[in-house]
Structure formats: C-alpha cells, structure tokens
C-alpha cells in the first residue's frame, strides 16, 4: 500500500525560504543555473566478475550497475526474446534515512522507470538473444546498487545502466545435444540505441534539472523523460504529489531532448 511520506529530509522553513528566494533570482543554492547538471563521472569495467559494470557519480550521488548474463527460460508471452531483468537497491550506506530490507516503492519505481527506458527503446535487441526459440534464451540481469544519495537517483542509475550495457561483453553460449555450453568466448551485446533520461523538479514556478536531495526535499513535483539516440521519447514518468501544467510539460519535453543529446555525447566520450 502506498502512503504519504514525511519529507525524507526535514527542511527547515528558513532553508526553504532561502531556496525560493534564490530561485526567484534564477539561481540555485549550489550556484548552478536551472538547466545545468552537476559534475558527472563514469568509470566502466570496475567489476571483473560481471559481464559489464559502471560506476556513475552525479554530484555526490553514486551508483554502481552490474550486468550478469546467464541462460534460462523466456518470459511467458515473449517466448522468442531474451529475458532482461532489472533491479535497484538503495543501499543502507547511501544515507542516514535508508533501512536495509527489500526495495520500497521508491526503489521499485526507480528500477521500473530505468527498465522502461531500456526496454521501450529496444536498446538491447532481445530478438538476438535466443538459443532455442521458446525454450532457452539469454537472461540478462542488470542490478544497481546505490551507494550514496544526493538527489536524482533516477538519472544516475539510468546512466550507469546504459554505460554498463554499452561496455559489456556477453558470453557466447551454444547449444550442443540440447544442452547449453559456455564457449568461453564473448561478444559485444546487440545494442541498437542509447536511451538517456533527463529529470527535473518543479519548486514553485521554477523547473530545475538534476535536483539535489535538498532540492527534492522542497519539490512540488518531479518529471523524468527518456529519449533514444534519434531524439524520440521512449519513457515518461511524473512523480511526487504536485501537478504540472501542460505548458511546463511540453517545454520540458523539448529540454529533455536537447539535454539528452548532450548527455548522450558525454557518455559516449567517457567510454
């Protein structure tokens, strides 16, 4: 059951007023302008035991994504496609407010929205990950561990997943006598496009990209939009309890496309 929450960080009235005042002057508390992302680092291949991995730092937010490739049965209704399974855990290391345990609704929403971007863009060509149609397919696990939180988990996780997949080496499996054999060789994954999410929050009338924890604590509403390499939109998620006007959404969709293209180039470069 979903329930209204106390703010995860108690925002002192003073601090919130300060923020609104700064925003009214077009400035954020950390000095960025509304459409700037924080510093951004990606390191790939950090987990040798994974088929692919990436660590993303977005300001102080830090996420690791790892890709594991196994074989298994296809999903019901998707018998001729490889299986893609994503999860995200906000580790209790990540902030003083995380309890260890199974993922809560925020972590579930997080992994489902990231999943949607990858799945709907068909970033991975799952048709190419079938060994025996209807029976044995590649199973691709993408698991994310959030190590430190400072806002905008969604984009940080999304970039880590994309970078980990892009730089993966998938094991090549073969079927011999109806048995799966790991050939010991690897191949690049069948990548078709690069989905990039862009997230903004609305605080009063201001719409800010890449919010920090402090900004999320003051937010009225959140929106995430994922575009693929050709600029088409593949996933949108409005979050939190406040509304957006149609105008705000349409304007944001343009920003998300442009900014997405910018981030896409950066991630390509970093790899």
């Amino acid at each position, binding site marked *: *059951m*979903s*329930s*209204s929450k*106390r703010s995860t960080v108690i925002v002192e009235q003073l601090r919130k007023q300060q923020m609104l005042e700064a925003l009214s002057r077009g400035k954020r508390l950390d000095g960025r302008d509304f459409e700037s992302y924080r510093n951004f680092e990606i390191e790939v291949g950090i987990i040798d035991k994974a088929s692919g991995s990436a660590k993303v730092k977005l300001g102080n937010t830090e996420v690791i994504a790892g890709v594991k490739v196994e074989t298994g049965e296809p999903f*019901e209704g998707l018998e001729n496609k490889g299986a893609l399974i994503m999860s995200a855990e906000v580790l209790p290391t990540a902030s003083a407010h995380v309890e260890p345990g199974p993922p809560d*609704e925020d972590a*579930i*929403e997080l*992994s*489902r929205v990231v999943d*949607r971007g990858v*799945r*709907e*863009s068909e970033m991975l060509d799952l048709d190419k990950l079938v060994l025996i149609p209807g029976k044995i397919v590649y199973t691709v696990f993408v698991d994310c561990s959030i190590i430190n939180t400072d806002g905008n988990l969604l984009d940080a996780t999304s970039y880590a997943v994309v970078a980990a997949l892009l730089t993966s080496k998938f094991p090549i499996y073969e079927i011999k006598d109806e048995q799966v054999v790991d050939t010991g060789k690897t191949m690049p994954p069948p990548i078709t496009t690069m989905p990039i999410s862009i997230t903004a929050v609305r605080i009063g009338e201001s719409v800010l990209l890449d919010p920090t924890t402090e900004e999320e604590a003051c937010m009225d509403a959140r*929106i995430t939009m994922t575009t*693929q390499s050709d*600029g*088409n*939109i*593949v*996933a*949108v*998620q*409005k*979050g*939190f*309890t*406040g*509304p*957006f*006007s*149609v105008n705000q*959404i*349409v304007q944001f*969709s*343009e920003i998300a*496309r442009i900014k997405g293209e910018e981030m896409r180039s950066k991630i390509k470069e970093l790899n």
Partner: protein
Amino acid sequence: MKELALMDENGKRSDGRGIDELRSIKITVGVVKNADGSAYIEFGKNKIIVAVYGPREVHPKHMALPDRCVLRCRYHMSPFSTDTRKNPAPSRREVEISKVMRESLEPSLILSDYPRAVIDVFVEVLQADGGSRCAGINAASVALADAGINMRDLVSACAAGRLSENIVLDINDLEDKEGDADMPVAYLPNLEQVTLLQLDGKITTAQFSECLEKAISGCKLVYEIQKEALMKKYFGNEMELKEEA
C-alpha cells in the same frame, strides 16, 4: 501488417471505435455498503471497485502527520482479473501503480483539513483491460467525493497513444500490447493541471504534445461522466423529476 490489425482503411480501430472515441464507460456510486465512499466503474472491459475509508485515526499512531492527512492507496488485481491467473501477492507493477495513483489523487484533496488522520483508498481490479490505472483513478476520485472528502476538483484520467501514424484516444488492451506508445494521463479539469503522466513506447516530441492534448480531451469527456454519476446518486430523484417535467 501490424497496423492493419489495429486500424482499418476507414480509420476504425480493432474494436470498431474511431480515433477520438472513448470505450463505453459506466460509473455507479455508493456500491460498497460498509465504506465511507465507494464507486464501481466499467471502462471498456475494465471492472473496478473502489472503497474509501476515512478520514479516520492512523494506526500505528507515529505514522500520523501533524499538519495534514495521510493518504494511502492500494491498487490490487483479483486473481481472476487477467487472462492468466494472477498470483495474489502484490507485484512490482501493482506497487508502482499504487504509488502513481496516490500521487495523482493527492493534489485534488484538501488534506490539511484533516490533520493527524488517514484516508484509505482501496482499488480492486475485478477484470483488467488496457488502462486500468486510469479507470481506477476515475472511480477513486468519485469514491473520495462520495466519502465527502474536501476536494479542489475531481481527478479525471484517460490514456492516449500512438498506433503507427495515428494518435488515438483511450488505448485498449490489444492496442497497449501491439501499439507503439501508451500515455496515461490524469487531469484536474477545472485547475488545468496534470497529476499523472506516464509513457512507454516510442513517440516524437511533436507527437508527444499531440498525444498529451488528446489524453486531456479524453479526461474532459470522462469528467462529465463522473459528475453525472455523482449527480445521479445525490440528486437522482430531482433529475428524474426534471426529466418528467
């Protein structure tokens, strides 16, 4: 090939509707005797019952908020609601929908009127078709009104989507699975605010705006049906009198 199945040469969709046509919608208010408010909706093949309990005391007490009411929402599918039997344990999908449903309803309610209390919204999908979250929001908002909760506006929800080159209103199950994009939207018609927005599929920026506008036009149609259902319950006799007159 795919498009042929979803839309014929006359612009008719697989279930015979036109591009801008809603499925048939029927809302009944006050269907769960024990609840403080309730509604039943048939939206295409969706059959959904919503019960509202509250405002009432929160248990455990430390969950209470000093300055406003807690809103809780559960979206749940009965095991017999889907083509293949659904395991009754809540799926990750149900957890996400419970969350976005709660968030889409919250802006419509004046929660500061009920500090330290809780309002529970239980959405049970008896039969699922495409768009069950929108249908559920529509029924939930009517049920909240039926419970007498102070509201700024009703929440009306409807999806639009893309079938090949066409942006169409109110995606059904087949269109959701075989179509190119699905965008559920919830809207406060008087306040002109969007409280739910999701998308999966592929769409250009231009189509995105068109799709959003179309979904909102659908919300406005739904709004009339919601109001009518409430009128029927509360002024049913008067309405009949007028018709007679």
